[in-house]
């Protein structure tokens, strides 16, 4: 009985603390993700207040957090949005991929971490945080802007790229031989194709299995099927995250919208736990040595995202201010960079410093992203005015 009491008090303290941090974050106009990570760093090994006895729960909760993060990423866009997005924006998407994956990969190679870590770091610097971007665009009242569809279509492409990238990364991380790796990559690519085709043609049947007019039944069926699929996927050596993501893509239409609304609070809860646990497992003392690299990466990948947005918006005939807004909107990295780093570190196949670098990098980018999006407009106007008066 005593153990449960202590665990409950600790857990209550953690959640309440996270709530306070989240409030501070939104007041400051930034995403709460960096503060959750900082919270985890403070609680964890080598931190201020080590936690005891709730590791089992926090570990499971953080795994569920990853499953829910990826499930909702899959739910975010319908299969038809994904395919039209691919057709319309593949050039911008490819530029985005090349420009933003390269810095991470090159940094890992320069650090001598090897090709596996390079693949993981490529993912960390590549993927923008669709959560932060969508929230920032909404908060700044930019959804009606002409460049916004350009920004969103880049995010859609990244979503699709994740569908290919995650299984490949998982296969490589599982440390199988080259041939074995090739087979599992082949299997996962096949699985994605099947899921996309099924979602496009028979999405309503999958939706019908989980759908229910009753909220309680719907929630239980949804969560149950997500964990089942994730568990089976992880048993088949295709990580749980990938399974949940594919299930999210397969569920479509109004079911997907209702599911998103229902699962959002749950995701926020468990994902917060995930960030804390990631912070917990990162020794704060390992961050200062990699801070310089993180800052350099942040500077470079901010520039590359701005270039991506600028180029994509210019192709759609959008003016200079719109182009720079589109670029700045894409800067934020967040939850998915941490998910990728988490997968890599958990496999034990990469240098442990990767977690520290990814943490420092996301701390910077999740704070910098919303700020860049917000202040790019006055700064751009200032320069435009100065050029006119000179």
């Amino acid at each position, binding site marked *: 009985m005593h153990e449960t009491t202590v665990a409950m008090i600790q857990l209550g303290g953690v959640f309440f603390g996270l709530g306070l941090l989240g409030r501070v974050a939104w007041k400051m106009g930034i995403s709460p993700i960096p503060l959750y990570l900082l919270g985890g760093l403070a609680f964890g090994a080598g931190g201020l207040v080590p936690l005891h006895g709730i590791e089992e729960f926090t570990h499971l909760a953080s795994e569920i957090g990853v499953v829910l993060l990826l499930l909702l990423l899959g739910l*975010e*866009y319908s299969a038809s*949005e994904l395919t*039209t*997005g691919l057709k319309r924006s593949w050039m911008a998407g490819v530029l985005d991929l090349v420009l933003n994956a390269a810095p991470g990969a090159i940094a890992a190679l320069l650090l001598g971490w090897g090709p596996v870590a390079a693949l993981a770091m490529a993912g960390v610097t590549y993927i923008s945080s*669709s959560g932060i971007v*969508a929230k920032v665009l909404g908060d700044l*009242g*930019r*959804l*009606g*802007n*002409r*460049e*916004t*569809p350009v920004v*969103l*279509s880049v*995010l*859609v492409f990244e979503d699709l790229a994740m569908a290919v990238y995650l299984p490949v990364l998982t296969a490589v991380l599982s440390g199988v031989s080259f041939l074995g790796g090739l087979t599992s990559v082949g299997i996962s690519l096949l699985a994605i194709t099947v899921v996309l085709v099924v979602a496009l043609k028979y999405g309503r049947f999958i939706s019908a299995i989980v759908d229910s007019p009753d909220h309680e039944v719907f929630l239980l069926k949804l969560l149950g099927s997500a964990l089942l699929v994730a568990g089976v996927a992880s048993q088949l050596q295709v990580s749980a995250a990938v399974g949940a993501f594919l299930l999210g893509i397969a569920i479509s239409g109004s079911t997907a*919208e209702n599911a998103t*609304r229902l699962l959002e609070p749950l995701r926020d809860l468990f994902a917060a736990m995930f960030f804390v646990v990631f912070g917990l497992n990162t020794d704060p003392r390992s961050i200062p040595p990699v801070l310089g690299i993180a800052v350099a990466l942040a500077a470079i990948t901010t520039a590359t995202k701005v270039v991506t947005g600028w180029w994509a918006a210019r192709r759609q005939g*959008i*003016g200079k*201010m*719109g182009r720079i*807004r589109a670029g700045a909107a894409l800067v934020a990295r967040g939850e998915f960079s941490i998910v990728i780093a988490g997968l890599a570190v958990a496999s034990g196949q990469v240098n442990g410093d990767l977690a520290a670098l990814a943490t420092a990098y996301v701390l910077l980018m999740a704070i910098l992203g919303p700020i860049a999006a917000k202040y790019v*407009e006055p700064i751009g106007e200032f320069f435009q005015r100065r050029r006119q008066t000179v």
Partner: protein
Amino acid sequence: MICVNVEITPLPGIGTRQDFMIRAGRRVGVITYRDGRFELILSKASDPDSCAASIPLSPEEANTLAGLLGAPQLVAHLREEHRDITGITTRQLPVTAFANRTLGETALRTRTGASIVAVVRSGNAHPSPGPDFLFENGDLAVVVGTAEGLDAAAEILHGG
């Protein structure tokens, strides 16, 4: 009628944007969120790419605004169509005497020769209502008929 070119842009993960360029050189439009919320958007005069305002509207508020802009148009449109037929006019008449009663009960056509071609309720037009259409308080009936017929109809609908 002059056609306005409405541009429909999907916003993946959010909804759709529908907007058009007005003669003053600004874009006016609506964002429809997936969950049914609306946002009225108006572009900046200096930068047509960006928005000067995006005003969130609940479905009821959007309906009301649509009615404010649309109902006079409906009457004007019908009046335009009937202009060639002398002696026939269109009028918007408030229905106060028939709340929770059907359109058939008014027996308007038999009694006045005028007919109800649409009912505007909280900003929404219900075209060609049938005899079992149920009136509510605050409904506006769009009635077509002769001047005398319309006067009689107004009296009946108002409580005659």
